[in-house]
């Protein structure tokens, strides 16, 4: 019985962790699919959301749920501004330039965050209704993790609706599939990309805010989780929702299970699995490019 319960517990934690990774990475997947842009600085937007939450909660006394909205808005705004003044210049640049440029942005974000907020972990005080356990099926589930999974399900449904059912979604899909033809059909691909980039950054910010007490929050955040975000996109396949989702959930479950059952080899399993997956599916599980 205990092995079964512990297994379900690990599975549950893994799913919560994976859905968080999905929420943060989905914006990266779209930018990579849409503009073929390798953005290693994506985690910085998640970190920004996290710090925004901590600051408005501790200094302005804003409650947790509205603070999440603030994180969403601030990261989205930062994404929109940076896209307009910096990222846009590099869409047609070589991948090497994009990599160097975004590593530069990552380093700057780490140093700036350390300068303003110090190198330590940032705490978050959750409201009482999100702490504690929920008793179900003879087991205890962390309330916050349930909340996390529910949030991600809601956001994903909204995202799928946006992409599959709206006019704007059709424009995104068309631009991912064939940029030139989309321009020819009168779609303003540049604007589509600006909005998508901002939305992706906003979702990353929301993910960073939700993840403060799951992933932790300190200035090295963008670098620490960079591999995870990239992995979700590279393994899942850029430009889709389904691929990164499967990849993120798998990664979450395997990471938690690996650290629980075989702690001595730790993160090794994940990296080995990643390399193997990339070799078997070079364009991702749900890749669109051949």
């Amino acid at each position, binding site marked *: 019985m205990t092995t079964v319960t512990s297994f379900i517990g690990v599975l549950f934690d893994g799913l919560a962790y994976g859905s968080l990774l999905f929420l943060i990475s989905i914006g990266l997947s779209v930018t990579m699919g849409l503009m073929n842009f390798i953005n290693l600085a994506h985690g910085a937007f998640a970190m920004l959301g996290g710090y925004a939450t901590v600051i408005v909660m501790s200094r302005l006394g804003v409650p947790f749920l509205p603070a999440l909205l603030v994180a969403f808005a601030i990261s989205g705004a930062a994404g929109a501004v940076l896209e307009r003044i910096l990222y846009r210049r590099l869409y047609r640049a070589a991948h090497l330039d994009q990599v160097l*440029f975004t*590593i*530069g*942005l990552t*380093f700057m974000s780490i140093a700036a965050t350390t*300068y303003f907020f110090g190198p330590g972990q940032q705490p978050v005080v959750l409201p009482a209704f999100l702490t504690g356990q929920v008793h179900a099926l003879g087991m205890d589930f962390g309330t916050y993790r349930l909340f996390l999974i529910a949030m991600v399900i809601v956001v994903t449904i909204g995202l799928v609706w946006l992409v599959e059912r709206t006019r704007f979604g059709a424009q995104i899909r068309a631009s991912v599939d064939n940029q030139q033809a989309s321009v020819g059909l009168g779609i303003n691909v540049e604007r589509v990309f600006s909005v998508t980039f901002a939305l992706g950054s906003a979702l990353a910010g929301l993910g960073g805010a939700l993840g403060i007490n799951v992933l932790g929050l300190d200035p090295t955040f963008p670098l620490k989780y960079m591999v995870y975000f990239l992995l979700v996109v590279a393994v899942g396949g850029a430009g889709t929702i389904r691929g990164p989702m499967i990849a993120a959930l798998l990664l979450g479950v395997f990471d938690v299970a690996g650290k629980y059952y075989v702690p001595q080899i730790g993160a090794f399993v994940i990296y080995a699995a990643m390399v193997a997956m990339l*070799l078997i599916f070079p364009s991702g599980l749900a890749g669109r490019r051949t």
Partner: protein
Amino acid sequence: MTRLPTLRWSSAEIAFWLIPIAAFFLFPHYLTLGSQVIIAGLFALSLDLILGYARIISLGHAAFFGLGAYTAGLLAKHGYGEPLSGLVLAAVIAAAAGWITSFLIVRGQDLTRLMVTLGIGLMLYETANQWSSLTGGIDGLSGVEMKKIFGVFRFGLDGRTAYVYSLVVLFVVFNAVRLLVRSPFGLSLKGIREGERRMPAIGASVRRKLVAVYTVAAGIAGIAGALLAQTTQFVGIDVFGFQRSAELMIMLVLGGTGYLYGALVGAAVFMLLQDYLANLNPVYWQFWLGLLLVLLVLFARGGLIGGLVALRRRFSKP
């Protein structure tokens, strides 16, 4: 007009190599920093082969540097402290690892290559971290004791032996690489860089050439790592770190890719800047480093050497 490469040393090249020799006599108190610069230059040179000539983006080149460092360090720690054969063994092990992993690298495109190299680097980091009975884990490998070079030159505290030793190794390897890139093999690498799809049409096997150059570059990175282990008589786990791979790319891009000398110039400028700025404040240093990268990409894609070449072209035209 493109001229065919020659093997003759130009006067600018000779002047370049006189600088480190002059530095040995002029700055006797900075020889330790000097050998760090030389080692970084050698490491950047190995990246230039795959990035500058074959256009493979690697975020995990430190994997081979680290393998070389641990090979040399472990050999010396367990009683085999002869430096030169240690270097050779480190190069062989790193090159073997490069050869095995090269088959994973040649398959993919940029993003896949980036992720695979990153993944391999992280795997080695984790291995070194967890296998602390062998590697010393996070505390690093200490107790590395080197014997005298040729039984004569002892690695002393003044760093003179380390400096000359590193410089000679750099010069020898640089010569070999210079020969390599000016050979038909080197020209075919440039061909792959400029148009990978067209190369098979002239009968060149892209795959085999990429495997070869990746293996050679890994071996050279291993030599650089071994030099660091031997001259500092210590191996820290950060030899495998992502930071090291990223900084390596910065050095190379700062100097300019695809010139060989760009690697050396970039490494020297980077290390001296770091020594100066990081002493002021390590956190600020990372900020300036990031800003430097952003500015380089936006405004100075050729790096320092690229800028010099452009300047010379402008003045040589009537």
